[in-house]
């Protein structure tokens, strides 16, 4: 059997997606289905003085209009940052209160989607408006969890002041990142159908278990009475993780009208009804001795949060892991403003913080007169600088060396503005990428038949990343089957537990459970065939029988193909539940994951620090006349343990790097300050890079073995690619123009 792990396997679900036969949540149409639409608040803070639904109700096709005054059985759940499954702690439409612009104020149900949307447009609301502020105020920030014991929100090691005082060179700067929205191609959608007290919800989800548990609990139903179905997700990036008001409103509306209801959120509404990347200010103070060794490292991350949640995505936990330094101080601070609660967006702890850290390192290298790669090398470390445990594996400098070769870093002349090509100023920049290895408990059911087919089932998700394919590869490798003989079903809440697809967890955690199931199949079959009166493995101690590539092998060299062994059992098939539990997982972590929460044992365990690493190099060109910024070349080299599928992994890393171009040059959710609203809530004006904006992107995946992280040796790669890109581009813009741009996105207007 050919090797299936670490090869390039085309997605098994590709034909279904390109032919349109893959069923997304908004494709389902239960019999008698009605359509929902949201009306949202025009003001940010205040009270609904009056809401007039008469015109909407008179609109032909409109069945019902729900507001806070008449919505029965609407069940809020606790927000994620308060330990619950919800996207936010404040639930609109419980009363007349308005706490952010664009919050739902009414829900219209109609016979057609057009009638529902028209009905929503005809809702007339009058408000009593209070003061509001949409942007954070770094001068008015507070330490997260002050007065409580929230570990790691402030870290102190050594003596920072001393480290700064003895430094030969220091850098002190603030780096600013904006609000950003995920904008997945697939709109937010939810379809709810009640049959008696049994409820089915179709919606794109990064966590069907969280959704099912949360809904069941809110409605006082048995979990088995709630079906949550999400076989395909058209992009999520963190936006489809929690339970949102639009889902619970759809469930409540379906119950109230006695028919299935489907809601598709409009693109502008997608900017306010779920989460986003909060804006932030990253304050760094670095000091180094004359050789470049860091003597002081301070990072204060200040980020925006809502009035009713504390969004803590601790970026300082990632930056403090990067470089050796005896004197470290970090703080995690927040500043409140009048928005919905933000959340996770691809590399939620890393994108903003590494935009700061990796520019600060570049600034330090320039002050020291050092090559920026060499500054990283001299500060590389094999132990976590704060936790003081070894990294389970760390190939940072191997990544730099690989990318430097492919990119041609040696051709760079260090002086600012020293590289030009006609009317273009050319700059080269580099930056480090890292991503924590989150590992969560997972189960998986694998059933193998003597006919040579295997069925793999687990409540994991394919958010467009290739999960269906890698799960089949993992099973195929151990069971000795072709990938196409391994049928994977995922994305339903009643399947065996798998963790939230967030934090780049799925391949490592859910994949390890599939791997474990396949090992167990070997054990179980070994027991059965060894007890048979005849056969090649009859009478062999089953504990001594090994399964490798689909062949059962006894110590004496006797073998039997697994397929044949399975076929020889009375059942003709075998079914097991595989489990992934890491020795570093506490009972609390495992329980949290099983209850739909996020019980990661990573990235730092009592024994080890687990991170993936990479390095990116970029060529930037700035036009002399138009000041336009172009990125003709972006190269990255990454080491993330075992690469399961060289094709889908390549796509993930490349997609992350391209998203990084967007973060650097394009993406920003603009704000209207007097009225505290997001402004450019459409993808004509919220710019993201498309094919025509992206030139050469080269991805190199290094071989790396890590026996600690999980049995497969897999680290996550879904988010790693984006982490270093923005800083690398900013560093290259500086190299080209001499302008140090510490605020995202970097635009022509910064360069005139």
């Amino acid at each position: 059997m050919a090797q299936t792990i670490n090869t390039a396997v085309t997605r098994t679900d590709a034909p279904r997606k390109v032919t349109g036969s893959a069923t997304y949540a908004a494709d389902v149409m239960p019999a008698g289905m009605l359509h929902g639409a949201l009306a949202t608040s025009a003001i940010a803070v205040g009270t609904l003085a009056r809401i007039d639904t008469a015109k909407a109700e008179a609109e032909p096709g409109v069945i019902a209009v729900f507001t806070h005054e008449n919505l029965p059985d609407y069940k809020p759940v606790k927000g994620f940052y308060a330990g619950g499954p919800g996207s936010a702690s404040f639930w609109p439409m419980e009363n007349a209160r308005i706490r952010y612009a664009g919050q739902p104020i009414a829900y219209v149900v109609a016979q057609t989607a057009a009638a529902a949307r028209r009905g929503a447009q005809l809702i007339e609301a009058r408000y009593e408006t209070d003061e509001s502020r949409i942007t954070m105020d770094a001068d008015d920030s507070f330490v997260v969890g002050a007065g409580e014991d929230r570990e790691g929100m402030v870290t102190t090691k050594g003596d920072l002041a001393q480290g700064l005082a003895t430094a030969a060179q220091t850098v002190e700067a603030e780096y600013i990142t904006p609000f950003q929205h995920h904008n997945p191609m697939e709109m937010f959608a939810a379809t709810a159908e009640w049959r008696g007290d049994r409820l089915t919800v179709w919606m794109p989800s990064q966590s069907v278990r969280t959704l099912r548990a949360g809904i069941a609990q809110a409605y006082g139903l048995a979990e088995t009475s709630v079906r949550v179905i999400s076989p395909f997700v058209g992009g999520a990036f963190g936006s489809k993780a929690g339970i949102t008001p639009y889902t619970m409103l759809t469930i409540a509306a379906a119950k109230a009208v006695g028919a299935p209801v489907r809601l598709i959120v409009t693109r502008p509404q997608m900017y306010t009804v779920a989460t986003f990347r909060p804006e932030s200010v990253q304050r760094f103070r670095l000091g180094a001795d004359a050789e470049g060794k860091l003597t002081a490292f301070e990072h204060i991350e200040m980020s925006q949060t809502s009035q009713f949640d504390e969004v803590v995505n601790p970026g300082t936990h990632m930056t403090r892991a990067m470089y050796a330094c005896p004197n470290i101080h970090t703080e995690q601070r927040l500043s409140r403003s009048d928005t919905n609660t933000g959340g996770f967006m691809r590399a939620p702890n890393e994108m903003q913080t590494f935009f700061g850290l990796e520019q600060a390192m570049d600034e330090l290298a320039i002050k020291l007169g050092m090559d920026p790669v060499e500054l990283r090398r001299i500060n590389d470390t094999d132990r976590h600088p704060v936790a003081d445990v070894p990294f389970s594996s760390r190939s940072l400098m191997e990544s730099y060396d690989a990318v430097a070769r492919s990119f041609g870093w040696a051709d760079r002349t260090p002086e600012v503005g020293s590289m030009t090509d006609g009317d273009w100023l050319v700059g080269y920049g580099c930056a480090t990428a890292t991503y924590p290895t989150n590992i969560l408990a997972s189960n998986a059911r694998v059933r193998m038949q003597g006919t040579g087919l295997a069925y793999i089932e687990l409540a994991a998700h394919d958010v467009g990343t290739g999960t269906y394919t890698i799960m089949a590869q993992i099973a195929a490798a151990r069971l000795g089957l072709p990938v196409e003989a391994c049928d994977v079903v995922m994305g339903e809440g009643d399947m065996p537990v798998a963790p939230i697809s967030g934090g780049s967890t799925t391949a490592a955690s859910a994949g390890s459970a599939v791997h474990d199931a396949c090992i167990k199949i070997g054990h179980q079959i070994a027991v059965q065939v060894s007890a048979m009166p005849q056969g090649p493995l009859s009478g062999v101690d089953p504990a001594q029988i090994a399964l490798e590539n689909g062949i059962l092998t006894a110590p004496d060299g006797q073998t039997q193909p697994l397929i044949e062994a399975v076929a020889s059992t009375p059942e003709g098939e075998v079914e097991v539940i595989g489990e992934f539990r890491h020795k570093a997982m506490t009972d609390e972590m495992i329980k949290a994951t099983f209850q739909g929460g996020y019980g990661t044992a990573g990235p730092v365990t009592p024994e080890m620090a687990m991170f993936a690493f990479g390095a990116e190099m970029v060529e930037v060109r700035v036009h002399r006349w138009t000041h336009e910024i172009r990125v003709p070349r972006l190269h990255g080299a990454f080491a993330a343990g075992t690469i399961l599928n060289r094709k889908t992994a390549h796509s993930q890393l490349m997609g992350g790097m391209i998203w990084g171009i967007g973060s650097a040059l394009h993406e920003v959710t603009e704000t209207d300050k007097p009225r505290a609203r997001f402004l450019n809530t459409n993808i004509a004006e919220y710019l993201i890079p498309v094919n025509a904006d992206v030139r050469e992107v080269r991805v190199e995946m290094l071989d790396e073995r890590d026996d600690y992280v999980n049995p497969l040796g897999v680290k996550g790669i879904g988010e790693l690619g984006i982490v270093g890109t923005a800083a690398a581009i900013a560093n290259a813009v500086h190299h080209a123009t001499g302008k140090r741009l510490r605020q995202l996105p970097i635009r022509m207007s910064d360069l005139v």
Partner: protein
Amino acid sequence: MLNFAYHSPKTLADAIDAIRNSGGDILAGGTTMVDLMKIGVHEPPALVDITGLADLEGHEIGPDRIRFGALARMTHVADDADLVSVAPVLTESLWKAASPQLRNVARLGGNILQRTRCPYFRDTAYSQCNKRDPGSGCAALDGGETSHHAILGGSSGCVAMYPGDWAQALIAFDAEVHTQGPAGRRTIPFADLHVLPGDTPEIETILQPGEIVTGITVPVVPALKASHYLKARDRESYAFASASAAVGVELDGDTVRDVRIALGGVATTPWRARAAEDSLKGKPLTEKTAREAGRIAFADAKDLKGSAYKIKLGADVVAGALMTAKSRAQGGE
């Protein structure tokens, strides 16, 4: 849903009647009209779909004039290799506009009449917008985000940007717009088509109800051959201009005999920079005089909060465009 009557007349006369009788609006490619209807900004009682009027399609290049039918598609014109060699500014400004999908659908008559992208105009949650709701105020000027607003041609009631690209080429080269309406046919200098917002930003052109743009003509002059459209934008593939310039030059040796300069991404209407043109006439075209012309083009600019960069950027874009046009006039690229 939003209900409206739909007419698809087969003749121009029927179309004019249908508009007059229904009080409706013209539908061509629909890339602006349908968009505004979906977001609730514009709710016409009827749409008169003129895409069946085959006489209004196509374009032709004559020795003295280039004629464009109002229903010519952006893509077809942008892709015409003959036009590229005769009048590069007319194809480049189409190529740099919108996305391929939009260019395939959008028609030239609608292109020149496209509405502003001002976010306050396009979002009915803002109660203040003089263009959408006359007399209601201007949210942009009331402390709003103005970095994408007009620094030329604005009023105290409206600074919404004219978003188009092709119109800059037309105004630079003295195009004419041909119309037919209840009062008959007329020809309008392109420069007179759009009106400044003043106290009535809801009025954007001098077109009368029922008056249909049937075609556009551009006189062929020597500067058209050495013309260029330079568009600076934050996303290379598809974005509205941060600043753009449609230019052309006719040189006598090094000396400027004729020069055309129009500005995009900076004004409330298509914008001809005549003072900048005058500064160059009879003088050599050098990087220095080009930069000076760029500076003069923005002498009257009134920067809003966050938009000061457009003055410097716009001047640089004018200068850069002129240098390319010069190279073309001298037989270069």
